């Protein structure tokens, strides 16, 4: 009972208007009769930053892949409308090792007819934006993990996506680098204004970055919290701590105060 949901995506941009980047209704996904996503509804407005939390195996990646159109051979049904231009940032930076940094950023990049800017120029600008100006001729293996992930960010943002899907992009980084990446991502999102769906395990990361945090559990979205804290968001803020406790509880963890 595999339904080709991608058929529904066609012509989506017009239907979405300029308000919604994601409009999902009753999305179900199963692997061999195991229901992973169960009638999920999710709307993300243009420019909105949504963080998706959930236990390991709760179906976060499955949802993200459905939105990215990467879930081949997966059965399911539902209505799925997403923005036309989507970029994906993976947990691994997924740079092609045989292309130099710039070649990775401009991979498959098409220059629009009109403004006389080559894809190389755009790639260089994008690299400068993530603080890697001058490294465009390096091989990916010559970069640190954090630098590789910044290249992956540049590769995503150079396409000026309406929707940025990120699956634990900072999961493999150390805490300090991760904090720097948070600042960078906030700045880039403020500049480019894509809608973002960020999958993360890190509750603090979700609260620091997102306008809205949702929790996926047993195939359903069980919790939804709007984060309306002024920047810079600090974990010491009592309002921050309240949201965090709420989210942790919905993930099945009681916060213990030592």
């Amino acid at each position, binding site marked *: 009972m595999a339904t080709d949901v991608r058929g529904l995506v066609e012509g989506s941009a017009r239907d979405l208007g300029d308000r919604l980047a994601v409009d999902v209704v009753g999305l179900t996904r199963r692997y061999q009769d195991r229901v992973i996503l169960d009638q999920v509804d999710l709307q993300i407005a243009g420019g909105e930053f949504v963080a998706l939390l959930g236990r390991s195996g709760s179906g976060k990646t499955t949802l993200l892949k459905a939105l990215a159109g990467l879930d081949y051979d997966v059965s399911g049904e539902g209505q799925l409308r997403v923005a036309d231009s989507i970029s*994906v940032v993976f947990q691994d930076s*997924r740079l092609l090792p045989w*292309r130099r940094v710039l070649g990775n950023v401009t991979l*498959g990049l098409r220059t629009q007819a009109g403004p006389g800017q080559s894809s190389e120029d755009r790639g260089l600008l994008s690299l400068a934006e993530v603080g890697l100006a001058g490294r465009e001729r390096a091989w990916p293996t010559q970069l640190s993990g954090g630098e590789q992930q910044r290249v992956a960010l540049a590769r995503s943002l150079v396409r000026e996506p309406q929707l940025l899907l990120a699956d634990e992009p900072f999961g493999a980084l150390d805490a300090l680098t991760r904090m720097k990446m948070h600042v960078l991502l906030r700045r880039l999102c403020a500049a480019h204004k894509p809608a973002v769906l960020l999958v993360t395990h890190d509750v603090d990361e979700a609260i620091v970055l997102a306008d809205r945090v949702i929790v996926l559990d047993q195939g359903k979205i069980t919790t939804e919290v709007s984060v309306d804290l002024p920047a810079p968001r600090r974990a010491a803020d009592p309002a921050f701590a309240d949201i965090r406790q709420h989210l942790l509880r919905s993930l099945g963890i009681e916060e213990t105060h030592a």
Partner: protein
Amino acid sequence: MTAQLETRIDVDHLVRRTRSVGMNRAQDRRRAVVDPDNRRRPGRLGLRRRIPYAGAVGPLALLAVWVVGSALHWIDLRSLSAPWTVVATAGELISDGRLQENLATSSWRALTGLALGIVLGVVLALISGLSRLGEALLDGPIQLKRAIPSLALLPLLILWLGIGEPMKVTTITLGVFVPIYLHTHNGLRSIDSRYVELAETVGLRRSEFVRHVVLPGALPGFLMGLRFAVTGAWLALVVVEQINSTSGIGYMMELARTYGQTDIIIVGLVLYGTLGYSSDLLVRLVQRKALSWRQTFAD
């Protein structure tokens, strides 16, 4: 005193030690010789620093044994001519032009067969690597061909193509395309599926996917196959040239055999060896250049 001892034992260690202590000019010069790139030495489990001209060390040692063995008459000169006899014979063969002529013929055969085999192998690997139908049709027969030595096909090829150049080039081609196909196909199929996912998310067209992901991803495999192919081409050459041939290095050697001229045979052997070895070196050089993005154990 201690410093000198250490120099002999472990120069690298000295370099690191002096760096922290500060260096006088003599040590500085020594360091420039030992460590031109100012790089640290590899880790505990990595290989040690490259030996300069490492590829030449073994063959030169072998040559030395031959020279010494002949000079001291450990080697019977009727079974194996002395190096200087061989050199003199080579000089004669060059001055009367026979060597160049036969070498040119042999090289033409090997290179033509190699070129055709490479094209055939790569095309077949792409067809069978990029389409399920292609794989179903091609992979089985090629695996079968692999199990049949090219030489076993020779009687059939002679019946079909006669004993002229087409038969010789075809035999070489058939020997060459198999390793090219196998390694390229394998390299292609072992490209990480995550790169395929990436190619889809950045919206690569099929042609771009082949150019930016498939071909570079299969390149290490292809170059490995090329090394086998090059060696195989020279090997096949030896065989076809010793059968019904009237030109080429193999013919020259076959003729020498009937007259018991081991010096000419050895000139032929050295030629074959040099050609095979230097073409393998060439492929390895290409490998190092083309795969400079890879950091491997041997680097």
